[in-house]
């Protein structure tokens, strides 16, 4: 496969990882987070610094996941009482703090960032990690735990009245989402081999949010659809004309506005296109794929 296409697939995989994490936070537990790229940045910096210090890639990738999760915990705890727009502003503030630190610390290389990170991310790694994370998250989301998270997003008071410690599950979602973003960051850094604070700003957070909303908030397949579209769209448009490519952020905005008007629940809709089709068994996702194949055969 040519480098160009494999690069697009790698970017898509990384974006799907990011969107899946945010989907758990925003789509399920209903916490509007505008700082998701920050967790990606934390994962990227942590793993890059560790690989450059000589640690094996997978160890430093894991460390990036853990540190990002830890930050998720740290930001999740104090902001728990905040809801909706208030939480969004708080996560925004968190992103600014981290960006300022990355810009000024000497260990992170300041605005110059980190260069010459070893090339470790390849197509296979990204595909396998994305698939495994998707599968685990899908299991989680269609389990009782996923339903509890969804219930919190729908009505926090009612879920507390049924005995749900909503803070606990909201933090759990934050930690898992942050960890996935950390992994995405690690993969990103070891593919492009150069990172700086500008890679992980508010714009990136919004881009991730776009993927989630576009695909369908609270749908386990939503981030995949949204991630694929948002990753491939600018590349596809690049071939049409460079002008279109330049205005891709504008295009995101336009897509979001149009989506909100014609299909506010996202392409797949918020409630699982496939989930309700077959509730039996644990491997229903594979079964529905198999079913589709069988149908195509006959």
């Amino acid at each position, binding site marked *: 496969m040519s480098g160009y296409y494999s690069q697009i697939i790698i970017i898509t995989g990384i974006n799907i990882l990011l969107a899946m994490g945010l989907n758990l936070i925003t789509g399920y537990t209903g916490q509007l987070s505008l700082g998701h790229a920050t967790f990606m940045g934390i994962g990227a910096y942590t793993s890059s610094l560790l690989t450059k210090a000589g640690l094996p890639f997978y160890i430093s990738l894991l460390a990036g996941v853990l540190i990002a999760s830890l930050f998720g915990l740290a930001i999740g705890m104090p902001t728990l009482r905040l809801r909706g727009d208030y939480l969004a502003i708080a996560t925004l503030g968190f992103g600014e703090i981290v960006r300022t630190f990355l810009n000024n610390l000497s260990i992170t290389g300041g605005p110059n960032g980190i260069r010459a990170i070893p090339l470790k991310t390849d197509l296979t790694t990204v595909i396998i990690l994305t698939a495994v994370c998707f599968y*685990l998250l899908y*299991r*989680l989301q269609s*389990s*009782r*735990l*996923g*339903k*509890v998270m*969804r*219930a919190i997003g*729908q*009505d926090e*008071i*009612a*879920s*507390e*009245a*049924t*005995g*749900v*410690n*909503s803070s606990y*599950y909201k933090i*759990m979602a934050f930690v898992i989402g942050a960890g996935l973003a950390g992994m995405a960051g690690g993969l990103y850094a070891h593919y492009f081999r150069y990172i700086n604070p500008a890679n992980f700003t508010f714009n990136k957070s919004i881009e991730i949010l776009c993927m989630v909303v576009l695909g369908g908030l609270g749908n386990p397949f939503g981030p995949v659809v949204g991630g694929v579209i948002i990753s491939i769209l600018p590349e596809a448009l690049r071939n049409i004309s460079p002008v279109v490519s330049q205005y891709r952020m504008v295009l995101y905005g336009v897509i979001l506005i149009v989506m909100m008007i014609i299909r506010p629940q996202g392409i797949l809709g*918020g*409630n699982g296109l496939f989930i*309700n089709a077959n509730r039996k068994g*644990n491997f229903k996702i594979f079964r529905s794929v198999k079913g589709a194949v069988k149908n195509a055969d006959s």
Partner: protein
Amino acid sequence: MRILKGSKLTMKFGGLKAVNSVDFHLDNGEILSLIGPNGAGKTTLFNLLTGIYTPTEGNIYMDEKDITGSKPYSIASMGITRTFQNIRLFSDMSVEDNIMMGLHSRIGAPFLGSIIPTPSSIKANRFAKERLDWVLNYLGLYSLRKEKAKNLPYGLQRRLEIGRAIAPEPEVLLLDEPAAGMNPQETNELMGLIHDLRNKGITILLIEHDMKLVMGISDRVMVLNYGEKIADGKPEEVKQNPEVIKAYLG
């Protein structure tokens, strides 16, 4: 035996005393109705008992244990569940998932058990399935179990909310205006249901404006007016109480 007790419960919102030094008790196995004009503090009292508010003054005891200031979720786990005045279902979730949510205080949702089947999660799932089927059949919702809660007609939504509340086999059930918006036929069915729940051993505290229902099923009636308790006794006594007639019954 006192299952639930509140002593000198006061709840202030700014300068307003929504509940003012109310002594309250609920005996094991009874149906107690809480009545009073709008704004009398009935729902505020409910919110105090279920931990949504922490009382400004006073204490709440369950089985003689002080539970003042406990969080709503831990109160639910102690066996006190409730419905809401304006129905609060998980409207985008199915009927069975709503009832499953009600079982949360019994089975939880552990992280590991959600991703891989563990012995305890298998056991929990089996228990949950049994309870779920029982509740669905008991309330006549079995055929609607896959339906989204928001697609149910109003009366069935109320029923489902009760289902969610009784799923974990609570000791105390708090019903906030369960007959609101129901026609006489539905109200009658509801009365039968409440009676039956009491016979199953659930102690019931009820807020209701439908006097036929209140007087028909209550063992005891408590009247609030402007946050203060003005009467507490058998339905026949309360009906005759001049202060209650003046404040509420008219």
